[in-house]
């Protein structure tokens, strides 16, 4: 059985780079007196891997939460293609095509790996109570299709042998990959990953790198928060740097890593 294609976009990178997919304009968010995000604007183009870096507490996760509807924003606008995302509920954001993973893994602990991925299909399936109770033909078809896709995703993530194990009993690296599989099950156009390599060993990181490149080749656009500078610089087409809720730089890995502000705030001497 072939590996399922993820994402709905053509994989031709050349013209893809010209099409903006995610447009964040002037987004601000405060928690009480703390300005966690100040007037953030950035644009992620179709087909690219866009990096988001910055020191601890810079507001990277807060930006993810603001994009995915978990936090309401104070000001600004978020668009995915032509769809407004700000003011939407998390499930509507996912429905629109923006899926995410969490920095502190949030799997459904008491569900199996397969069930976790099946939950990821929720937004792309429709059967309700009557269909489920009567096992109507449409429901059966939908369920069989979901299971087939879920198994294929688990295979792709190297988790096939864990399909029937509870998520909470999987090794750490597998849990991270399972979260990616769950997000991919919703067939997103943009996948936002919050420190996917955290806690992974070098071999797992190398595998993750390959996986992300494959997803990009399939036409998926990626938004990546990552502290592993080598990984980010090697993978990303462009990146933005946050510090104290402010975007201090944006550009190609080369430009950004030579930016004095970025070196002072985040990279330090190691990048030189």
């Amino acid at each position, binding site marked *: 059985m072939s590996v399922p294609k993820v994402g709905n976009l053509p994989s031709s990178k050349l013209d893809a780079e010209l099409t903006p997919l995610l447009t964040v304009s002037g987004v601000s968010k405060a928690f009480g007196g703390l300005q966690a995000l100040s007037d953030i604007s950035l644009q992620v183009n179709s087909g690219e891997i866009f990096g988001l870096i910055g020191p601890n507490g810079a507001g990277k996760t807060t930006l993810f939460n603001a994009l*995915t509807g*978990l936090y309401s924003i104070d000001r600004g606008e978020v668009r995915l293609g032509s769809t407004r995302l700000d003011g939407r509920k*998390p499930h509507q954001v996912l429905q629109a095509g923006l899926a995410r993973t969490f920095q502190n893994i949030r799997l*459904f602990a008491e569900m199996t790996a397969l069930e976790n991925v099946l*939950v*990821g299909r*929720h937004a792309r399936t429709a059967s309700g*109570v009557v269909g489920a109770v009567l096992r109507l033909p449409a429901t059966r078809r939908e369920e069989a299709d979901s299971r087939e896709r879920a198994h294929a995703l688990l295979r792709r993530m190297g988790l096939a042998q864990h399909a029937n194990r*509870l998520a909470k009993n999987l090794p750490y690296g597998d849990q991270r990959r399972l979260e990616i599989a769950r997000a991919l099950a919703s067939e997103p156009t943009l996948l936002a990953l919050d420190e996917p390599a955290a806690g992974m060993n070098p071999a797992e990181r190398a595998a993750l790198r390959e996986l992300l490149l494959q997803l990009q080749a399939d036409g998926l656009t990626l938004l990546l928060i990552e502290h592993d500078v080598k990984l980010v610089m090697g993978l990303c087409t462009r990146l933005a740097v946050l510090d104290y809720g402010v975007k201090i730089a944006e550009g190609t890995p080369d430009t950004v890593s030579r930016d004095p502000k970025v070196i002072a705030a985040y990279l330090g001497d190691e990048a030189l």
Partner: protein
Amino acid sequence: MSSVPKLNKPQPRWLVFGLLALGLALLPFLVDAGLGRSWVRLLDLALLYVMLALGLNIVVGYAGLLDLGYVAFYALGAYVYAWLASPHFGLHLPFWAILPLGAALAGLFGVLLGTPTLRLRGDYLAIVTLGFGEIIRIFMNNLNAPVNLTNGPQGINLIDPVRLGEFSLSQPHALFGYTFTGVHLTYYLFLLLVLAVIFISMRLEDSRIGRAWVAIREDEIAAAATGINTRNLKLLAFAMGATFGGLAGGLFASFQGFISPESFNLMESIMILCMIVLGGMGHIPGVIFGAVVLTLLPEALRYTGDWQRTLFGQIYIDPADLRMLLFGVALVAVMLYRPAGMIPSARRRQEFADAKG
């Protein structure tokens, strides 16, 4: 769900089903012969509690919403039946019209009472739903003036039994050369409905809807970020649970022939919750087991007086006190030694296997 190993060979499976069906069909006769008529009545009651527990299991066991006011829906179903089939308003509609109506109305109330609690979790949800349950009971207690809707604490009497034409479940009938009493026939009716509720629960559990409920229970934020409309699915859980509660309420009214607010107090909600927790939350066989045991055990413990007399020649402790004491000890013991319930779900068992392997 998928983690449950399936029996693949058809013969043993059908054999098991066949024996189970035969056992369930003969049960009231065996109980009647062995323990007496009053125990057949208890069997009927146990079936009602299975229905109630399976309904609450959807709310608490699957969706993880701690609802302590569940008995309100039971009361609603019972009063709807009483209003439409008793001399109270002089209405005598047929049961097949009232039961679905009561269940649907209870389901609607599930949504109405669920809506304001959507943002609440855990303890807070428990307290608010507990309040709702009490409000409904107090309403029933006081709605005898200015218009006498509920007849207040006296309750409503002479409620029609389930009846089709001349065939009433309150009288004995001769069928196939045997005499079936009312409690026997009621048993078969309740069994049929319980089987339907079990079937619906099983199908829902292993579906897109059931998985979404469990996902909400496990992590509501992750569930929302995974595309689940948590508001709608929580309301659906409240509605489904309340529907089963309303159905059980209607059956209860027809079975007893009399209802009053006293039957629907907080203790009742807590008892149904205990059945779920004790049997195995979120696991259908566990919930059924919990409901049957917790209905029959307190009755069996009524005999502690007789036991004391045979053992010691006299009664040292009042059976009513001893009964509650033993009941409490049993609950504590189960929670200590089997915290996941008497019959925990396959997930829990698998967890155990995973820990070993």
